């Protein structure tokens, strides 16, 4: 069932790619390549690790994360991913999946995550654990559609801040998120660029991360994806789970309303 949904979403994404560049043999060849990669996505290795981390007793308090409230009540995982980021009353903040996991690891397990998370090495320690957890939690909402809340004022505020960040031009190249992701049907080199100012379609853009990157064999959560976007934008670095990253998540997530999640996906 889960597998079928994944395949359907991928086929839809490939069909979209093919119609956009029907006459472009190269693009078709690449769509075929991506289709071939779907069977055997190493993201599943991270999913396994994430599930284990969720259930395992860890930290100074020696408890699991099974009581963690991801927004749908303590321990409810299914469907949580497609509603994040959202406002959490206990922290008084809008939080994305990764920052919420940090809260749970701190409060439930007593792990000093703030000291542990490090954008300089997403593949090590607690940062890698958060990536694996995000992969598994994301996968539990596979085939579900994004539906972020905008009912709390703080959520609406974060959307407006995110929108401003999306269009903010700076750095030596004057790039903004919008430079690459503000219009339909554009490519950078051969990569199709989703238009993130609206719902770019099922399984693309916000609905495709966490993803396994074949170019470097790493599993990337949205925090890592945004971090590398800013690197390529030639900006300074956004801190892990900082409000810039969360506001952009709200902006993209709200815009993606109705898009089907194919997480965990596989990417170039």
């Amino acid at each position, binding site marked *: 069932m889960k597998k079928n949904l994944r395949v359907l979403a991928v086929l839809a994404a490939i069909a979209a790619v093919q119609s956009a560049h029907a006459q472009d043999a*190269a693009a078709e060849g690449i769509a075929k390549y991506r289709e071939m990669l779907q069977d055997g996505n190493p993201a599943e290795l991270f999913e396994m690790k994430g599930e284990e981390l969720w259930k395992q007793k860890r930290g100074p308090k020696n408890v699991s994360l099974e009581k963690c409230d991801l927004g749908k009540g303590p321990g409810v995982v299914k469907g949580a991913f497609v509603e994040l980021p959202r406002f959490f009353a206990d922290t*008084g*903040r*809008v939080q994305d999946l990764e920052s919420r996991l940090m809260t749970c690891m701190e409060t439930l397990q007593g792990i000093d995550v703030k000291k542990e998370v490090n954008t300089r090495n997403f593949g090590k320690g607690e940062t890698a654990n958060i990536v694996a957890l995000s992969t598994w939690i994301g996968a539990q909402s596979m085939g579900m559609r994004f539906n972020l809340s905008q009912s*709390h*004022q*703080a959520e*609406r*505020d*974060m959307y*407006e*801040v995110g*929108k*401003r*960040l999306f*269009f*903010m*031009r*700076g*750095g*030596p*190249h*004057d*790039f*903004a998120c*919008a*430079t*690459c992701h*503000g219009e339909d*049907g*554009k*490519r*950078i*080199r*051969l990569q199709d*660029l989703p238009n993130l100012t609206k719902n770019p379609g099922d399984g693309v853009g916000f609905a495709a991360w966490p993803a396994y990157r074949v170019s470097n064999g790493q599993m990337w959560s949205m925090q890592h994806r945004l971090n590398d976007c800013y*690197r*390529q934008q*030639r*900006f*300074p*670095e*956004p*801190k892990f789970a*900082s*409000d*810039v*990253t969360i*506001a952009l998540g709200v902006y993209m997530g709200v815009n993606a309303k109705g898009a089907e999640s194919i997480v965990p996906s596989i990417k170039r």
Partner: protein
Amino acid sequence: MLKKTVIALAIPAAAVLLGACTSSPSSADYDKMTAEVVKASFQDRGIAKLDRLEQDMANKECAAASVAGKPIEEKVAKAIEETEMKTIKWPSDGKFLGDWKEGEKIAQSGRGLTWSDDVKTVNGGNCYNCHQISKEEISFGTIGPSLYNYGKLRGVSNPSSPESKAIVEYTWGKMWNARAYNACSQMPRVGHKGILNEQELKHVMALLLDPNSPVNK
């Protein structure tokens, strides 16, 4: 009365305070909130320092227009273009074209100026990321227009002839500072921001305008 405690977190605090007196914050309130979020969120890394977040008039006005979902005001656009036009430096020796083979290498490279580069990294032009250029390279972007046959289509058979002067100068100026011609152009201000130096720009000029370049075959 109880003293009100202001929560240290920028966003919920703003929401609470603003929510108390007005139904929803104004666009200017959000601009301010965004500035605070930016200040709290970014950090220096490698050669990418916080000063890169400072916005000049051109970036500020163009971003504001995008947020509002409207084209930039004509008056503002003119002012930007005039300011940017003054930044263009013309070749010191009067020669506009270098070696197209070198130009192709620069056009291919997307390196330089990220926090994972260092000061010694030779910057690329990032050209193929957005433009089709030579026919041979099938991996090209479409954010900018195709530049295939750039010189040929514009009738440049001899770049140093008087007939070609206008287009040669325009091409140089456009690469030095694209926003002198189009206030909110997405193209980096390649010369003005020091992404490529004069010699490197000459090589890219040759790639586009030399009749022997594969671009014009």
